[in-house]
């Protein structure tokens, strides 16, 4: 009776005059879209009207948004999102949403809809920041916040931060974005000066994080090469490097996760300096790995 799977292979029946992909209704296209990423959906919206309709449907975009996307919207004035479709809300949240006086930004990864965050140096507690003999603020387009803290010289190097935010359930990696040496533009070219850069190869910097629910991570890393390689020079100078502090896991956006983090080099037997502190990133862990390599500018 009827056809079985085995005689499907010749593809003889039901083809040619049969229905095409263009005939499937919008509700089925929406079901297809549940399995595709937002950029793919936006691209395929141009196929035909059913695809366009499904590419704007709330049910599709609701599935791409984090469960607690309302928490992110709450950072914006209501008139910015009040009458928006779910698709437009997704688009809105893919652009960085600043909060805490613009010292922090949160956004959705365009492909996965996962929550990412950056915290500016202005949003961190930097020991000695108000003393211009130690620290200076440098405006720069190399930072997403257009400003980095530059350390000239100090004995007690300590940068602390805390973030309390309803992160959706995920595994996150926290990292500091640092640059050894001072950079500037001369005649349109980027140049670095290392006149203040010293002390980072003697002892490692200690990176730590704690969450209120008892997770912690610690690692130590020398920010400069410990031995000067005569042929290749210094590897860690003149570029932005993400120093991974560790990972933490969020199982629910409620209760709100609080994370404390720091980097320290407080051995006062030697001074250190010539370092730019840009920001702290909190990015879903495997997203971070996937993007590595594109980070350095």
């Amino acid at each position, binding site marked *: 009776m009827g056809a*079985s799977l085995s005689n499907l292979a010749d593809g003889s029946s039901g083809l040619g005059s049969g229905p095409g992909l263009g005939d499937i209704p919008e509700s089925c296209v929406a079901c297809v879209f549940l399995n595709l990423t937002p950029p793919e959906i936006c*691209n395929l919206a*141009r196929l035909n009207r059913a695809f366009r309709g499904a590419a704007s449907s709330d049910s599709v975009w609701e599935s791409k948004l984090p469960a607690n996307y309302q928490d992110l919207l709450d950072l914006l004035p209501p008139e910015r999102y009040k009458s928006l479709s779910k698709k437009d809300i997704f688009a809105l949240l893919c652009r960085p949403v600043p909060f805490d006086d613009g010292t922090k930004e949160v956004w959705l990864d365009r492909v996965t809809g996962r929550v990412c965050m950056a915290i500016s140096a202005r949003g961190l507690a930097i020991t000695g920041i108000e003393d211009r003999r130690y620290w200076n603020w440098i405006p720069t387009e190399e930072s997403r916040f257009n400003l980095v803290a530059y350390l000239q010289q100090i004995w007690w190097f300590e940068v602390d931060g805390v973030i309390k935010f309803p992160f959706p359930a995920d595994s996150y990696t926290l990292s500091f974005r640092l640059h050894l040496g001072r950079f500037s533009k001369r005649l349109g070219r980027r140049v670095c000066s290392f006149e203040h850069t010293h002390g980072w190869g003697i002892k490692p910097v200690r990176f730590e994080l704690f969450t209120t629910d008892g997770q912690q991570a610690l690692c130590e890393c020398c920010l400069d090469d410990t031995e000067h390689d005569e042929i290749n020079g210094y590897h860690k100078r003149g570029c932005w490097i993400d120093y991974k502090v560790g990972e933490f896991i969020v199982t629910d956006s409620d209760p709100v996760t609080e994370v404390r983090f720091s980097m320290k080099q407080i051995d006062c037997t030697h001074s250190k300096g010539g370092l730019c502190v840009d920001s702290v990133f909190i990015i879903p862990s495997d997203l971070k790995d996937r993007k590595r390599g594109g980070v350095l500018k």
Partner: protein
Amino acid sequence: MSNQSESPNPTSSSNKITLKTSDNEVFEVEEAVAMKFCTVKQYFDDENNNNVTSGTSTTLIPLPNVESHPLAILITYCKKHLEIKANNADNKKEMEIDMEHYEREFLKNVMPQELTELILAANYLNFKEALDFFCRAVASAIQNKSVEYVRKFFGLESDFKPGEEEKLREEFAWSFEGVDED
């Protein structure tokens, strides 16, 4: 036909249900299979509610929107689905592995264009698992493909008016801007 349903028992697998497709082919399937098709189940339940006293168990259910070709495939898929489920009743993970394996093999024998037929049939029959599966299969066939490729591959023609497609490009531009940025 056995005439055993003084009181119809929808879980009994010995009962047969007869389905008649739009091209007038008749399929006799086990009740457990037919009941996975929600449209059939609905019809069947309504019939039974109306005919409790009539004592007939074999209902002929017409399916005016389904052809025999996709229906045969759906029945095979459904049988296998139930079988895998029954074999791994207490192990969800094993069941998923078996199902995945079966679905991978299944797709080797399906032409891309046939998927459309299957989706339409599964959609009409309201057979959710199959619909999800076929939609997943279409998704992986068109994933990361250009609009032009998908049109050619699936023989799909644009039904937009001139200019509409350009407008869409603008509307969705946000999803592509700066994709390569950090």
